[in-house]
């Protein structure tokens, strides 16, 4: 704290100190200049001056082979992430080891591909480590659960989102929020309806011989009411040998596209893409 009566004294002191410092700097500059002039005039043995010697001993900086470009900032964009199940693990109702088990997750899907979950969020639990809230490929559809982060592999990111409209019987693929693909689809009949909700793409089947599924088939996390169907009754998105039936309510729950459309979708849609069926 500065007392009112001492403020003037302090200001005067600062002024005096500034003047002394300025004088000292000016003196030093004068001395340095004189010394430099004296040195440049001095001759070395052999007739070379000091300044010539300096030119020889101080090369120009080397030109670097490359110069890093402008820093690359991330653009704002719609992002979803998924991770594979690295070791068999119980998904729980809460992010603690004593919470009820929702389901047990294995490393592989019925098709033999890596089992993956869509990551919805994380929570750090002190010494309990990080827990991941994941969308799960189990009944009832829409189930989520918590798994330890250590049971999952590295995060993978996608910027796509597939939306199936059951009323309009259309499929639209969005990339970074913009539609990049649209097609008519066939969906489940009234007895075997295609389930509504939030799901994700689990795997891609290629080069198989089954005309009724067309050239490509995507596996999803959605489950049909046909629970006794082989491999658990998962809903697929695939081609067809009956394009004349599309669009319409024609399937056992799967989403059928014309073969030319499924080929186009296969080029654009990565595994892990979130799927909305509305």
């Amino acid at each position, binding site marked *: 704290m500065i007392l009112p009566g001492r403020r003037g004294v302090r200001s005067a002191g600062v002024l005096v100190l500034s003047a002394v410092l300025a004088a000292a700097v000016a003196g030093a500059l004068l001395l340095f200049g004189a010394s430099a002039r004296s040195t440049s005039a001095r001759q070395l043995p052999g007739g070379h001056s000091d300044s010539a010697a300096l030119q020889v001993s101080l090369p120009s900086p*080397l*030109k*670097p*082979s*490359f*110069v*890093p*470009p*402008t*820093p*690359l*900032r*991330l653009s704002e964009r719609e*992002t979803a*992430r998924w991770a*594979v199940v690295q070791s068999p693990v119980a998904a729980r109702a809460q992010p603690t080891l004593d919470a009820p088990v929702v389901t047990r997750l294995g490393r592989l899907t019925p*098709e*033999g*591909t*890596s089992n*993956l979950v869509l990551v919805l969020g*994380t929570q*750090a639990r002190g*010494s309990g*480590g*990080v827990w991941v809230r994941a969308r799960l490929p189990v009944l009832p559809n829409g189930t989520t659960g918590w798994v330890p*982060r*250590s049971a999952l*592999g*590295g*995060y*993978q*990111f996608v910027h796509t989102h597939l939306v199936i409209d059951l009323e309009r019987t259309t499929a639209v693929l969005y990339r970074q929020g913009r539609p990049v693909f649209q097609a008519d689809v066939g969906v*489940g009949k009234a007895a*075997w309806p295609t389930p509504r909700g939030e799901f994700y793409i689990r*795997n*891609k*089947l*290629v080069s*198989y*011989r*089954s005309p*009724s*599924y067309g050239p490509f*088939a995507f*596996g999803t996390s959605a489950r*049909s009411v046909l629970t006794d*169907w*082989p*491999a658990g*009754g*998962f*809903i*697929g998105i*695939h081609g067809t040998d009956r394009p004349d039936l599309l669009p319409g309510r024609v*399937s*056992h*729950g*799967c989403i059928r596209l014309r073969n030319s459309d499924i080929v186009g979708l296969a080029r654009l849609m990565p*595994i892990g893409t979130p799927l909305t069926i509305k």
Partner: protein
Amino acid sequence: MSDLTLEQIDEDGAIQEGIAALYGDTRADLFRKAALGGTAILAALAGPPAAFAARSKTRDVAIFQFGLNFEYLQSTFYTEAEQVGTVARMNRQKAFWAKTLGAHERAHVAIIKKVLGSAAPKKPSFNFRGNTDTESQFTKTAVAMEDLTTALLTGIAPTLEDRHLTAAAFSLLTVEARHAAWARHLAGVVPIVRAFDRRKNLDEVDRIVASTRFISSLRPKTTTKRRPRYTG
């Protein structure tokens, strides 16, 4: 103010032993773990250098291939922290730091890939094992990673045969050293520990990276030729 303790960096201990070498701890367990798990950068490198080799010394190419994989590691680490929302949860000052370092590391990847051309290795798969999910783990790992980068560049820059590459490597080194100091400052530890930085060679860094198990040897299998059994 105490320095970072490695126990704080990773809760499952995977990175702890790897980074321990930076802090002068015993390396015995580090080597054991490196032998057991994780894919190292050197193992991820494959194939002979191509066009770049024609202009540059083979050893320089190998060093820059190693450097690119290390930059992949760093850039993916910062990018992932942004993408999962950890950076968005930080205060303004810290988020600025994290975004800046991420932008720098992505720029480093871009230029080294360009320099290597067809000799550039593919980006490996990474699993940061929860270290991008929380602010505290992210910060501590960033400190360890930036310190390691500085030690690596201090070690390899003088060994490059092409002096123009050395000049470029030094321009990376000074930036990475400031990254390390900035990260340390924000983590609440002493920005500069010693009067002289210790160097590390490629093998030492390779073993440390392997012990973190951040580079994953397994890529997810997402495609198969099996016949569909969906409901149809």
